[in-house]
């Protein structure tokens, strides 16, 4: 039986891990095998906390419930942020009255109170024309949704419900690109690949509109909609040489591969910090079982240092 590294979890993180696994296997000439599954962050953690997988992809930090489950079986883990996903707010390309939106405007649109009431662009801002407002977003079971609501509305999972939801972001792309009054949000990669059909909205967080781009994400100016995504590594698995090699390979090659699959790489020092944590065996999460919104990279590193 040749060495095997088992990874499962988030579909958002999947493309990165797939790229890493592919290259890793090539480099090891198939002496070490890697498998990657997609059962969602929640499904991934379920397996992870039963000790069935070595690495779990996660598009959000581990939550209280999952921490408890892991603890129950004595599973310790390392939490490694590996990339940024810039949540991108997009509108139909024919929409020429929107270039820039404030977080407050987004909140007015998405907060629960808006349900059934804010149905026209001119209700968002009287300067906007009389065009029906149609909303598109990820399903309420996704990390993206949790993050967006917390960042925009101010409370995780607090959102209006009358929007078209899909787990498949391409469906959202289709929706907004065919709907003149459409507005939606999803991962940056989908915007990059569909720039012809969509228009990104720059986000004004008090300091003028900022469009998502690798630079603005990395320098922290695209806020509060850039979120880190993670892999979690089973501490016991890490004692196995194949898992150790894989994770090291992951951290080493992440900057290059993350870019290749159209996500935004974290600053080099984060990967550095990750390596250090592994070396110093600093297990656990820095988020305490809750969503962390708008956390700057610096803050993240600082928190990690406290582990």
């Amino acid at each position: 039986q040749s060495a095997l590294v088992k990874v499962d979890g988030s579909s958002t993180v999947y493309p990165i891990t797939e790229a890493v696994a592919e290259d890793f296997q090539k480099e090891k000439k198939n002496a070490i095998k890697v498998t990657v599954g997609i059962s969602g962050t929640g499904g991934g953690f379920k397996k992870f906390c039963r000790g069935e997988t070595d690495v779990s992809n996660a598009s959000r930090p581990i939550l209280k419930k999952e921490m408890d489950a892991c603890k129950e079986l004595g599973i310790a883990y390392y939490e490694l942020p590996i990339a940024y996903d810039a949540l991108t707010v997009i509108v139909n390309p024919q929409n020429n009255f929107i270039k820039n939106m404030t977080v407050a405007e987004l909140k007015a649109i998405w907060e629960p109170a808006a349900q059934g009431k804010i149905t026209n662009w001119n209700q968002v801002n009287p300067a906007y024309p009389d065009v029906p407002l149609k909303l598109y977003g990820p399903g309420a079971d996704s990390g993206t949704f949790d993050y967006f609501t917390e960042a925009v509305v101010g409370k995780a999972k607090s959102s209006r419900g009358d929007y078209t939801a899909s787990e498949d972001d391409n469906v959202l792309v289709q929706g907004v690109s065919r709907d003149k009054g459409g507005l939606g949000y999803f991962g940056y990669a989908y915007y990059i690949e569909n720039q012809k059909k969509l228009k990104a909205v720059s986000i004004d967080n008090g300091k003028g509109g900022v469009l998502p781009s690798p630079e603005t994400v990395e320098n922290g100016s695209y806020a509060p909609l850039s979120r880190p995504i993670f892999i979690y590594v089973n501490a016991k698995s890490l004692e196995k040489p194949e898992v150790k090699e894989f994770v090291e390979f992951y951290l080493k090659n992440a900057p290059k591969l993350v870019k290749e699959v159209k996500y935004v790489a974290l600053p080099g020092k984060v990967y550095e910090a990750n390596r250090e944590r592994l070396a110093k065996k600093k297990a656990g999460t820095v988020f305490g079982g809750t969503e962390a919104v708008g956390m700057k990279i610096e803050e993240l590193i600082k928190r990690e240092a406290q582990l």
Partner: protein
Amino acid sequence: MSDTAVVAARLQEIRRIIARHKRWDLLFALLGLCALMLGVLTFVSLFAQMVVEGGPRLSVDFFTNFPSRRPEQAGILSAWVGSTLVMIVTALAAVPLGVAAGVYLEEYAPKNLMTDIIEINVTNLAGVPSIVYGLLALGIFVYQFGFGQSILSAGLTLALLILPVVIVATREAIRAIPIYVREGAYGCGATQWQVVRDHILPYSSAGILTGVIIGMARAIGETAPIITIGALTFIAFLPPAPFTGEPMAGPFDWVFAPFTVMPIQMFNWTSRPEEAFHQNAAAAGFVLVLMTLTMNALAIWIRYRLRKNIKW
């Protein structure tokens, strides 16, 4: 009025009525043809679209490569092998189980409340969403029986999923066997099992096959339940072939191997942002339909051979 005149008048009346009714005949024949064409054309256009979009991706490499982040290098090797193996397990489980259940209900079961309950139960299972089968299988096959996230678990899950179709088809096929064939066999002193083995099963096999085909066509396209029980998406190696490798694999080791299947690969590519992956998805869809087609063609051929010898 003469007799002839009366008849002539009547004839005229009849002809008028017939002409009127014939219009309906024609209209309905057209309507039927249109309905048929609607179905057939939908299929043809779906298929054509997959060919047009995915055609350029079809090459030997596409079949022999593992998944990759680079769309032009990504292939479906692990997926088609996985689908084939899972289908084998599914067929091996669903066909005997479904046929045995059908035989029991049709030939053995006393016609009482219990049969009614089993009958309702079977049709009811046909309406349970496939993902629920996945949840069940995760608990039973993966954990309870300890089969793990393997080809075996997946095959059995899909077998449960298509069981109702196989059972219903089996029963219908058995019902079509004329009663006098049974009587002839019993008349020779055959026991119930001998009648089933020597007559009922051979003569109903064509109809059973139809049910197996419909069921397998559904099974090969299922995604959700297989994901639930833990099929992978990236897997760059194949299950161990019997008696190969180091240490040598046993004859059935492959059933416990991790795997992926075509619809998962396809689903994954569909939801990727890059357009090029969507072409891969179309190509995978094309291959999937082709696999279904092959399965169907095989079965239709067998069915034809079986039917040739049997006409009541």
